[in-house]
Every structure is written in structure tokens, then in C-alpha cells.
């Protein structure tokens, strides 16, 4: 028996059945470490300084505007009766939506054993964390008296009053903070083996000390790996429901209310699909230029881009279906207010928002049906930006489009953003990109250990890698 197996030679699969490998060009494992860690090592490249010198002042300007806001009043923003929520809530939902791709990629795709996730999960999780930071800024600063924001925490305060647990805004506090905590933990646990790699490669004492501190004494022993994999699996299991719950609860902020256009049972799944759609859009927006600039085309291959485009297509189609269903129900329900709200979306004063939303979210992703589109990186980049433009307009239509004309015509109004609204939004971009650039510069932007595990060479049964005969090197 053993004799027979000794002579068994594994053949490479026929060319037409072979999948494009996840690491191109048969790169050796050492090359993977060098390339990925190299992005965070060596001299800081010029493009990084240029990008940082734009994003950092933008962030500071944003902080300045927040100081202006807190010292003066929320009135410096656009909202006014009857549109009491404006760009702050739009941007909150928009950013938190973007923050959905990271955990979906790292947790749900991990449980579903989608091996391609390894090349994108680290950057996507970082994106998630920074996007949630941008998002979480808004609800805090949009309230009238920021210094009482801690009332949202379930601490019996000096008045012995608990927060109103029946309010979806309250649920939001728990949902977002839980999501942020678990995302950070998950990201950090995944980073540990790679931090150890960075530690071992460090050339200066301070780098060695800091990476070593955060690597928690990782040696790569079997026991470490065994514990690590268990912890990672548990965190993936914990994160999975959170991916679905956070945006469901954000959607309840709207659907729990009475307002036509908000009071809809379809909101939770519709918001989750939209969030994943926008998150994947942002992943594309970031990774398509990044893989080029950091010369990572062989690790983040066209196959990766292709798959991300397909997920965008799938979730975009769910969003398109939800739009259709919303209109159908508005008509089918016979509720005149509901009908009016949805009529206003397309033919009201904010008609452009409604059409932008349908164009960018329902029509644009349909282009991803075509392989040629998915492989045209310039086009993918442009479309990925349109995805998030569309998702911004979706929230615009939902928040402002529903509020400006509701039940009683005497209360109808109009909303205009102020320059502070616009610049605070730009400030959150500054915050996001500042943190993202720092991440690129100091941490490995791709999970080195995980990519090695899915490289063709790592598979002992693969004819081109690992063991050739009987699971052992010949």
C-alpha cells in the first residue's frame, strides 16, 4: 500500500481548470514578507508625504470646525425646522456603512473560507475602524449640548435617571461602540503574528521595542498558533452577527419613527446590503490605487479585484431590489403620505438626490456583470467612487428627502447645507486618510502570515508547492 503511494506523482490540473493563484508569479514566501513589510519600512515615499500633507491639515481644520460648533451651537450647520437632521446624520450613516466591509471580509468570509480575503482583510479592517471613528464623531457633536453626551451611557447620573432604553438612538450607542470594540480587537489579534514579523525585521531599537511590545511575545510556536487560531475563530464568530446588527440598528433610528419614508420594515436588510455595498466600494477605491503605488499587484491580484466587484454587484442588486420594493409598497399600501414621500424622492425639490441614488446604486453596479469592466482598473476605480456617491445620496434622500415635506403642508420647508457642513465632512475625510496613511506607514497593510498560507507553495498537496510525494519533501 505504502509502496504504491510512494510512486504516486501528482499532476498539475489541466490549464482550463486551474484557478488564477492568489499570489501571482510563483513568488517565494520570503518575497511576500519582504514586499509587504517593505511598505512600512525604509524611507517614507514622496507620495505618502504629499497625501499626508493634504489629509493632516484637513483633519485639523475639521477639528477647528468642531470647536466652532461646540462653542457656538448646532445652528452653524444647515438643519432647521422641519429638517432637524442634516449632513451630520447623513455622514454618520455613510461612514458607518463604509465601515461594514472590513468586518464582513475578515469575519464572514473567514467563516465561509473565502481564501482570497487574506490579501484585503487587513486594509479593509483598518478602513472599517477609521470609518467608524469618523462616523462616531458625528452623533456626538451633532447633539445640542455635547457636554451632556455621557447621558447616553447607562450610568445612573446625579438625577438617578437611566437613559431611555426604548429609544433606537440608545441602541445605536451600544451597537456602534460594540462594533468598534470588537473590530479593533479582531484587527489587533490578526496583527499579532505580523507585528512579530515587523519586530524581527526592525533595524532600530525603538521600532524593535514598540513592535515587540504589541507583538505580545509572539514566537510562532505551535502553541501560539493554536491559541491564535482559536481566538481568531471566536472573534470571527462574535463579529459576524455584529456586521448585520450595526446597520440594522442604525436603520431602526429611522424606521422606528412615524415619518413616511422612514417608517418602513424593509429598512434593516436594505441598510445592511447598502452598507456592505458601500464598504466594498470604498475597499476598491482604496486598494485599486494602493496596489499600484505600493507595487502589490502580485498579492492583490486582478482576481481579488474581480471578486470584490462581484460582491459589489451582488449587494448593489439587493439594494436595487430594495428600492423597487419600496416604491412598490408605497403604491401598494395605498398610504397617501407614503406615496407622496416616494413621489417627492424622484420629482420633488430634491429630485436630483433620488435620481443620483438610483443611477449610482441600482444601475452602475450592473456594469460589473462584464468581465471586461471588472478587469479595467481605471473604470473599476471610477465606478467604486460612484458607488459611494450614490450611497451618500441614498442617505441624503432618506434623511432630508423624508423630513422636508411630511404630513402637514404648513410645516414644509427646505434644507440647505452651510459651508461648515461641507467642510466638517471634508474634515472627516482628513481624519480618515490621516489614520489610514499612518496605518500604511507603520503596520503591514496585508496579513503576511495569512497570505503565505494561501500562496500556492504553502499547499502541501499542490503540485507546485510544499511536499511532492506522500506529504513529504522528496
Amino acid at each position, binding site marked *: 500500500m505504502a509502496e504504491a503511494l510512494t510512486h504516486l506523482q501528482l499532476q498539475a490540473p489541466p490549464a482550463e481548470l486551474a484557478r488564477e493563484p492568489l499570489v501571482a508569479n510563483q513568488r517565494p514566501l520570503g518575497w511576500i514578507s519582504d514586499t509587504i513589510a517593505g511598505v512600512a519600512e525604509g524611507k517614507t515615499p514622496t507620495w505618502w508625504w504629499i497625501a499626508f500633507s493634504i489629509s493632516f491639515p484637513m483633519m485639523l481644520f475639521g477639528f477647528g470646525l468642531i470647536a466652532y460648533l461646540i462653542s*457656538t451651537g448646532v*445652528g452653524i450647520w444647515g*438643519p432647521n*425646522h422641519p429638517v432637524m437632521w442634516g449632513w451630520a446624520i447623513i455622514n454618520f450613516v455613510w461612514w458607518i456603512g463604509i465601515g461594514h466591509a472590513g468586518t464582513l471580509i475578515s469575519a464572514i468570509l473567514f467563516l465561509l473560507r473565502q481564501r482570497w480575503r487574506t490579501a484585503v482583510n487587513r486594509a479593509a479592517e483598518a478602513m472599517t475602524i477609521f470609518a467608524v471613528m469618523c462616523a462616531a464623531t458625528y452623533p456626538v457633536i451633532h447633539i445640542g449640548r455635547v457636554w451632556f453626551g455621557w447621558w447616553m451611557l447607562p450610568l445612573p447620573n446625579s438625577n438617578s435617571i437611566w437613559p431611555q432604553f426604548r429609544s433606537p*438612538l440608545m441602541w445605536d450607542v451600544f451597537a456602534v461602540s460594540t462594533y468598534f470594540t470588537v473590530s479593533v480587537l479582531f484587527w489587533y489579534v490578526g496583527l499579532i503574528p505580523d507585528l512579530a514579523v515587523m519586530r524581527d525585521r526592525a533595524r532600530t531599537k525603538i521600532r524593535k521595542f514598540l513592535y515587540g511590545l504589541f507583538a505580545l511575545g509572539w514566537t510562532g510556536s505551535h502553541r501560539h498558533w493554536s491559541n491564535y487560531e482559536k481566538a481568531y475563530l471566536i472573534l470571527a464568530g462574535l463579529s459576524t452577527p455584529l456586521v448585520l446588527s450595526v446597520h440594522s440598528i442604525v436603520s431602526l433610528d429611522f424606521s422606528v419613527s412615524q*415619518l413616511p419614508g422612514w417608517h418602513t420594515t424593509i429598512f434593516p436588510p436594505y441598510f445592511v446590503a447598502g452598507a456592505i455595498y458601500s464598504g466594498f466600494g470604498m475597499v476598491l477605491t482604496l486598494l485599486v490605487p494602493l496596489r499600484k503605488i505600493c507595487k502589490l499587484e502580485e498579492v492583490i491580484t486582478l482576481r481579488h479585484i474581480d471578486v470584490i466587484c462581484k460582491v459589489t454587484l451582488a449587494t448593489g442588486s439587493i439594494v436595487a431590489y430594495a428600492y423597487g420594493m419600496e416604491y412598490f409598497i408605497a403604491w401598494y399600501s395605498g398610504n397617501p403620505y407614503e406615496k*407622496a414621500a416616494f*413621489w417627492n424622492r424622484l420629482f420633488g425639490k430634491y429630485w436630483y438626490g433620488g435620481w443620483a441614488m438610483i443611477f449610482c446604486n441600482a444601475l452602475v453596479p450592473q456594469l460589473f456583470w462584464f468581465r471586461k469592466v471588472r478587469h479595467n482598473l481605471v473604470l473599476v476605480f471610477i465606478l467604486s467612487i460612484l458607488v459611494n456617491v450614490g450611497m451618500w445620496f441614498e442617505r441624503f434622500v432618506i434623511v432630508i428627502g423624508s423630513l422636508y415635506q411630511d*404630513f402637514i403642508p404648513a*410645516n414644509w420647508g427646505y434644507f440647505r447645507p452651510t459651508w461648515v457642513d461641507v467642510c466638517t465632512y471634508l474634515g472627516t475625510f482628513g481624519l480618515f486618510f490621516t489614520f489610514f496613511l499612518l496605518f500604511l506607514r507603520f503596520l503591514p497593510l496585508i496579513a503576511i502570515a495569512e497570505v503565505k498560507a494561501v500562496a500556492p507553495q504553502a499547499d502541501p498537496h499542490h503540485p507546485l508547492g510544499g511536499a511532492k510525494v506522500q506529504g513529504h519533501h522528496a
Partner: protein
Amino acid sequence: MGTRYCSNNCPYKVRRFNYFDYNKRPLDQLYKSPLYSRMDGQWGFAKWFQDVDKGTIPDQEWELMKLVRNPQVTVRMRGVMEKCTFCLQRVEQARIAQKVKAGASGDIEIPDGTIRTACQQACPAEAIVFGNIKDPNSRVSRLKQQARDYQVLDFLSTKPRLTYLARVRNPNPAMPDYHEKPLSFVEWESQGNRLEEPGEQGAAHGATPGGSTDEKGARPWPKH
């Protein structure tokens, strides 16, 4: 703390939010941040630390501002949601007066008609009635028992305490107060009238008569 969620949810949109320190600043200086305004020879912010009330405007103006306000009605600071309180200060005044008067007798029920809200007092048509709706014999309760009493947007089940009496019109063309007016929005529409803006379609089914205070000034209801 000022999330303004209640206002978004209010189908009547009766709430108003203090977006600025209206109680402290003249209307033309609302946007001025104490972080970059100087007054009385010091920065607004430094002054604010000394006295949070008058910190954001010059001392003299503050003295004047205080005199302008109705001392009975407080406009609270920025970040607070305001709403009609049914003249709570008058209700409290009457309540205290009644308690004092009752003394040990325990008769603390305020007689109907004692409290008159400011709007009620000011209304020349005397169209506003305020009173105890728990007392079936109060004037307001008796009016509420009429068949023409209705709640605005009653189907939303918000149970508003404030209700309206439907308008009474004379349908007899021979009478002097007869008007060539439709009795309902539905009737008005059936006469071939249409709202100017397609966006106002909703109101067409809602039968909520009343002029639109819309920007374009579209007035779906014929002027009286």
C-alpha cells in the same frame, strides 16, 4: 441633550430647537463664536469662563438683553428643545394660588376658566379654549364632546390633547354667509383643481385643508 429626534418624529412639527444661544445674543451675532470674538477688552472665551451667562456678549448689551425678555417665559440655552408648555407658568401660578386658598380644606381643584393661556388671551375670535379635560363639565370637555371635534392626523394614534372643532359653513345659497367653497379637499379636487407642484400630491389625499406656506407660495386652498 439635543438629539432633535423628537422633532423629527413629531407629525405636527410643533417643536422648536434652540440652535443658538438666543437667550444671550442678539440675532445678528448668533454665528459668532466666543472662540474668536473680543469684547470688553478680552476674548469671548476667557470671559465665558468668568461668567457663562453674559460671557458671550458685551456687558452693556447683556444688561439690555435681560430687559427685553418676558421674565415669565424662559428661553433656555442652546441645545435645548422647546415646545408650547400650555403656559405652564400660569398653570403653576393658579395651582399655587388655589392651594393657598384651599388651606386645610383640601379643595385644590382649580375652577374652570381660571387659567387662560397667552394665545387664548390674545385670540380676537376667542377660538382657543383651555381647561381641565379630566373634568367632564369644564368648557373644554363639553366642546370636545361635540361631534365636530377632531384630532389632526388622528390615525397616527398620537393622542394629542389639543383637538379642533370642524368649521361650520352655511350650505344654503340664499343666505348671506354662503360661500362658493368646496367642503373638502376631495371635493375641491373633483372640481378639476390640481396642486401646482407634483410634490404636493400627498396632501391631495390627506384632506388637510389649510394654506401651504411653501417657498413657491403655492396655495392649494382657494383664498377666502
